[in-house]
């Protein structure tokens, strides 16, 4: 039994600190500065561990609560040790600065209020690789089933892509004066819209051959709406 580990801490994060983009939608692996998790902690750092699909309900609206895990400073541990142990923890090396280690405690979980996450300070977003490693550890912790991260990636790609596209869309549309919620609502109406024969851009994200076409379509539409004011 060997869980996968990172080559370099940088590969775990898409953004940390000031690089975290305010317009990025809430997503698995987001780390917040101060979050109450009922029954676990009244405050302190926490990371979203819910699957992206389970965080959202009808019309992609966020559920009132999101499954999160407590995050706290960890003891310095060699990288290779994470492959064969500490399964109840998700290591977050260099989360805040070099030569530091935080850990998400995968046994200390609960639903945090979505509103408090949205108004709170997000200090990091995991990369696709980071989310895959988190999910692999969590699955193993819960079930003793070892699932290769490349297959977790294959399953999650459409959700990863959609989050990236929403962030980009919001970036463009909000720059022209739209509110973030309004931009997100427009995107959530645009991407699942029937483009004929039941085909949708959202559905096309499942096909690697079509993803670039979906990106172009979303970019073109965001620019059109931005120019239309």
């Amino acid at each position, binding site marked *: 039994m060997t869980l996968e580990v990172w080559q370099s801490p940088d590969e775990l994060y898409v*953004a940390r600190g000031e690089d975290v983009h305010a317009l990025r939608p809430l997503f698995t692996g987001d780390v917040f500065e101060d979050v109450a998790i009922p029954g676990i902690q009244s405050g302190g750092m926490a990371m979203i561990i819910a699957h992206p699909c389970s965080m959202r309900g009808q019309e992609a609206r966020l559920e009132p609560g999101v499954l999160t895990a407590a995050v706290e400073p960890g003891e310095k541990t060699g990288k290779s040790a994470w492959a064969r142990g500490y399964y109840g923890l998700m290591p977050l090396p260099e989360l805040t600065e070099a030569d530091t280690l935080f850990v998400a405690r995968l046994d200390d979980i609960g639903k945090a209020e979505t509103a408090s996450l949205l108004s709170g300070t997000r200090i990091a977003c995991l990369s696709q690789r980071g989310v895959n490693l988190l999910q692999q550890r969590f699955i193993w912790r819960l079930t003793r089933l070892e699932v290769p991260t490349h297959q*977790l990636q294959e*399953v999650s790609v459409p959700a990863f892509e959609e989050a990236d596209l929403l962030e980009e869309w919001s970036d463009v549309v909000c720059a022209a004066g739209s509110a973030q919620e309004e931009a997100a609502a427009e995107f959530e109406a645009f991407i699942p819209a029937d483009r004929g024969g039941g085909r949708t851009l959202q559905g096309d994200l499942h096909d*690697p051959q079509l993803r670039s076409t*979906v990106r172009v379509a979303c*970019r073109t539409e965001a620019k059109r709406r931005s120019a239309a004011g």
Partner: protein
Amino acid sequence: MPDATSADQTLVTSTETSLPEEVTRTRTIDDLVQEAGLLRSRTRLLGDDVADTDRQARDLHQQMVNRQLDSKARRLAKSGMSGLLKELAECGFAWRDIAALARVSVPAVRRWRQGEAATGEHLLDVAHVVALVETLQDDHLVTDVASWMEMPLAQEAPLTAIDLAVAGRLPDVVDVAAGHAAGEAVLDRWRPGWREEYRSEFEVFEASDGQPGIRLTAADGNDA
């Protein structure tokens, strides 16, 4: 029986085929086994020679491709970072992939998009990506480069031409597009053992809610 072609039976210097030796006596089975074995040795050595020449030709070709990409990149870099990024965005590349290809973070690419100046080194890195796109489109008729580069190079692994390019193996990407090499052969050179690395007892399937899921692959190859 002496060899009519060469005293050194390990030396093969050309593809010349010698005429059948005149039979002056009835050959024994031992003679025939020896002759057939010699023929196999010659064929193998000839194959080794061809393989070696192919390797040399590939190395030379890839060096030239690299130089061509360098030259194109220097020309393209003149259009500036925003022009280069615009071109890649219009092709449909993900910013995440552009960042990986340019060896920077996604937020760094966003800052470039918003007008922050990039270093000359990063400008050249991005220009190399655009040069590759140009080469694939113009010289190898890849119409949708971003899509092509996101397709797995082989069925048994999710590795793509983008992964190859991120690893700095741009000539290998060109090789695959040109049909000089199959995706599997390129992966064998780049990551020996990739088949074992990506072998899995699981498969991705479409669940009843229409979303992808993961399940154990049945031993008989049918649905689990």
